[in-house]
């Protein structure tokens, strides 16, 4: 039995997992049109490489970027590109970003160049990394960080952590994935392990998913019997069900007792952490040569008639999925992308499913918001619940006062917006909303200062330039004047000389 640690704070939440984890995976039907945003990851937007009118195959590259922190985007089904323009993306703001819109032909035909790799073990580490990058794989746990950027650690790695915790209520896509494709996940891990070369490898699963734990253990056993000896160092570890145990830094603390430094990354303490979905996507990319064009999405919540996990083509409109799953009362339904704790409202149901979409939660409209928030009574429950060890109460005051220096002092940037503080608050203060508000206000303020500095510098440089030009002009003028005087003097001399000569001639 592996020794486990505890992270501070956290809350126990009702899971609501049985709603969607009992049904088998359902294949969502191909929609008439898929809308694929060109930025589905943290980092730079990819540039389109197709034109309107082009025919595309499933898995064909449609946008790419040379930036290290970026991921290419592929067509999720075959059809023709009918537009490359701005559409609302699944973001709280409802802002439109550039998307490639594909009218599907229903054939769902893979690109002819895509073929399975017969000997993935013969590929070099660099080739593996390139293929993972080119397949557009990003962290599928929700943070959508381009995975290839994680797989080139600059220092030795002790532990590779595969995150199958899935701690938010309602979401079950990782659970169902682990139960349905355990062997693929293990094979994916074996590939990833070659890239980071860790001493050990841990698959962490919350103890409320016994079937997933059993499936993974069985798969390891099976591979061991099949003679894949290197699975020996892969261990499945059941961890206690406490929210937010699935958050990267909290999970690392539970498994190893190590704390990732403030605003640091796991590799600094010798750990690389990847989601199980990412692992399965790596398997697909290397063994089958298939880029990331679909993902598992939990469609669940009290308003859904048939909650289940769907295998969804990226770019499918949420409304198309809801049609299949059935919504009870369309009018008073609130749609959330992600879980109830960290998810955000969708502006409307026409937004597409993206790489980050792990769950579509349909709740009754505004049950919580109806409870008006009461004044803070300084009970300190939020500080006890905070898994980071922040003081949400202080942050709350300073967020309201927009005191950016104080917010920095109380480490606002370290807040992971897990929502524990807001859940335990007896006054129902939407604390996380305040912190998100304060974070964006602070960023806007800093940007304003940066632009002001830039403008100041440019003004100074312009003035210096004007000064220099003026000086140069004056100098040129002075030079010209001097030249003119000299010439005049020279001609006068000549004249004089000529005069003297002629005078001399006359005298002789």
């Amino acid at each position, binding site marked *: 039995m592996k020794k486990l640690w505890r992270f501070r704070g956290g809350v126990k939440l009702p899971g609501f997992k049985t709603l969607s984890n009992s049904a088998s995976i359902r294949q969502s039907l191909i929609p008439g049109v898929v809308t694929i945003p060109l930025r589905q990851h943290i980092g730079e937007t990819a540039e389109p490489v197709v034109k309107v009118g082009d025919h595309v195959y499933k898995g064909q590259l449609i946008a790419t970027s040379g930036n290290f922190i970026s991921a290419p985007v592929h067509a999720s089904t075959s059809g023709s590109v009918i537009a490359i323009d701005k559409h609302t993306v699944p973001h709280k703001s409802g802002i439109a970003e550039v998307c490639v819109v594909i009218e599907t032909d229903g054939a769902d035909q893979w690109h002819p160049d895509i073929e399975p790799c017969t000997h993935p073990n013969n590929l070099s580490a660099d080739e593996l990394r390139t293929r993972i990058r080119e397949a557009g794989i990003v962290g599928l746990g929700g943070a959508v960080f381009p995975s290839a950027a994680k797989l080139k650690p600059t220092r030795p790695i002790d532990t590779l952590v595969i995150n199958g915790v899935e701690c938010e209520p309602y979401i079950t896509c990782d659970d169902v994935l682990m139960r349905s494709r355990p062997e693929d996940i293990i094979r994916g891990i074996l590939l990833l392990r070659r890239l980071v070369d860790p001493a050990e490898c841990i698959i962490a699963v919350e103890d409320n998913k016994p079937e997933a734990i059993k499936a993974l253990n069985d798969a390891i056993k099976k591979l061991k019997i099949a003679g894949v000896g290197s699975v020996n160092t892969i261990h499945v570890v059941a961890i206690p069900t406490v929210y937010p145990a699935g958050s990267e830094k909290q999970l690392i603390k539970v498994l190893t007792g190590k704390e990732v430094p403030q605003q640091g990354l796991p590799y600094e303490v010798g750990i690389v952490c990847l989601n199980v979905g990412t692992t399965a996507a790596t398997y697909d990319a290397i063994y089958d040569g298939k880029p990331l064009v679909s993902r598992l999405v939990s469609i669940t919540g009290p308003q859904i008639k048939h909650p289940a996990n769907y295998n969804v083509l990226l770019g499918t409109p949420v409304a198309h999925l809801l049609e299949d799953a059935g919504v009870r009362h369309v009018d008073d339904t609130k749609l959330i992308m992600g879980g109830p704790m960290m998810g955000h409202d969708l502006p409307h149901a026409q937004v597409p499913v993206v790489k980050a979409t792990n769950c579509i939660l349909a709740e009754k409209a505004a049950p919580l918001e109806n409870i008006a928030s009461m004044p803070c009574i300084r009970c300190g429950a939020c500080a006890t619940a905070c898994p980071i060890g922040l003081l949400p109460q202080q942050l709350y005051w300073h967020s309201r006062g927009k005191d950016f220096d104080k917010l920095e002092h109380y480490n606002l940037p370290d807040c992971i917006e897990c929502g524990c503080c807001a859940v335990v608050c007896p006054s129902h203060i939407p604390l996380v909303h305040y912190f998100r508000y304060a974070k964006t206000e602070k960023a806007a303020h800093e940007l304003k200062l940066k632009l002001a500095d830039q403008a*100041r510098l440019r003004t100074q440089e312009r003035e210096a330039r004007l000064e220099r030009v003026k000086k140069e002009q004056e100098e040129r003028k002075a030079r010209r004047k001097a030249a003119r005087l000299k010439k005049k003097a020279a001609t006068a001399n000549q004249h004089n000389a000529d005069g003297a000569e002629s005078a001399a001639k006359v005298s002789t």
Partner: protein
Amino acid sequence: MAVLILTILALVFGGILGFVAIRFRVEGDPIVEKIDSILPQTQCGQCGYPGCRPYAQAIADDEAEINQCPPGGDAGVQALADLLGSEPIPLNPENGEADDGLPMVAVIDEETCIGCTKCVQVCPVDAIVGAAKHKHNVLDAYCTGCELCLPPLCPVEDCIVMRAVEPSIKSWKWPNPEAVDEGQAA
């Protein structure tokens, strides 16, 4: 005796002060720098001075009030009052109306531009590029929205207009929860 001691002390301390004044001389005027760092650097001249720094100098010299900067708004006046230890006063309407907070940039219509270079010369942050008889263009990232290039400077009607910067996910801000709370109560 007492007179002698005091005279010696006065000479010694005077010497120290004189030495310090030369040795630790502060280049420039720090108060002007501080005022300038509060001003929004739009360089629009609405205050009546040819840029933010001259206005900062004027405030430091007690020649100008602190309420002449519309882009800075009331928050700017407040910050200046805090710095200078004076009372905040409302913005002077003669200098123009306060900014509504939406960042604006100038846009040149390439079809109507005649290439007169007037705007290129007046732009305080060199954010307009172009040469005589060639179409000009604004570098969005550097434009401060000062409006100095607008007509009557620009001789062509509807050539240069101000446009709000398009909101993006990066620049989007979460709404204030307090406002949302009140909105629901009402």
